[in-house]
């Protein structure tokens, strides 16, 4: 069973890394989501695969016996919720980014970089610099 889980993790990581390295930003995010799923499986595997029984104390009992390790389940649940929130955020971000930038190519997303036509060396004459007042934040 452990071997199957390991193979699953391997396949998920492979797919995730392949997609995450894509230039297509949407694939990139899907790849990271897959990597998140793989990380959750690793957490799950860390608790050992011993029992398929749910970690719920039966009615009338006090102790949990023969059940799965509840701690990795709690960890995975937390990680799933957080990962879910991040994927939600990334999808909205991508929607806006792709709408505003009109591209989904990661290499074309250079809006936070210095302008390629900027004169690299000083002194730049004031005429080159279109100093406007009040200034736009992005000169």
């Amino acid at each position, binding site marked *: 069973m452990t071997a199957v889980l390991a193979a699953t993790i391997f396949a998920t990581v492979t797919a995730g890394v392949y997609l995450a390295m894509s230039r297509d930003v949407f694939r990139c995010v899907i790849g990271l989501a897959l990597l998140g799923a793989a990380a959750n499986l690793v957490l799950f595997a860390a608790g050992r695969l011993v029992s398929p029984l*749910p970690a*719920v104390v039966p*009615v009338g009992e006090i102790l949990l016996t023969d059940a799965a390790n509840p701690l990795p389940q709690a960890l995975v649940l937390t990680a799933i*919720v957080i990962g879910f929130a991040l994927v*939600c955020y990334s*999808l*909205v971000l991508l*929607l806006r980014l792709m*709408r505003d930038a009109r591209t989904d190519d990661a290499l074309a997303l250079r809006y936070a970089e210095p302008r390629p036509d900027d004169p690299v060396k000083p002194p730049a004459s004031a005429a080159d610099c279109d100093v406007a007042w009040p200034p736009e934040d992005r000169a």
Partner: protein
Amino acid sequence: MRSRVIILEAAAGPLYLLILAASVWVLLRGHNEPGGGFIGGLIAVSASILWAVARGSDAARQRLPLRDPLILGATGVLLAALSGVPALLLGDAYLTHLWATLPLGFTDLKVSTVLLFDLGVYLCVWGALAGYALALLAVDDEAAASGGER
């Protein structure tokens, strides 16, 4: 102008209440069995999404308690945070939960700070995810209204 689906609109009214009732049942069941605030909140979100599909995002937002997903979520976190305070007053660590039984005459009502915490989680999940989903659906509505692809 969004197209209307009369059957869905008609069915949404009773379904909304039914789904909410189911979500509350799951919330309360979580005390001793699988279930709880998180799952219950997710089910409640599905009710809001149903309403949004049937009547539009704005209508669904108006139907939320407190009429604002953000405020609803924050209220949920507030309730969850407050559930830990009684323990602090008694000198225990924060979030140490307390249980009590209220005799009502005909039956004993069990109350606990855990229930308050779970209710907080329920409202928080409902507010946060409904806000997210409704905003996404509204994007779709805008696109339909402007008539273009984007």
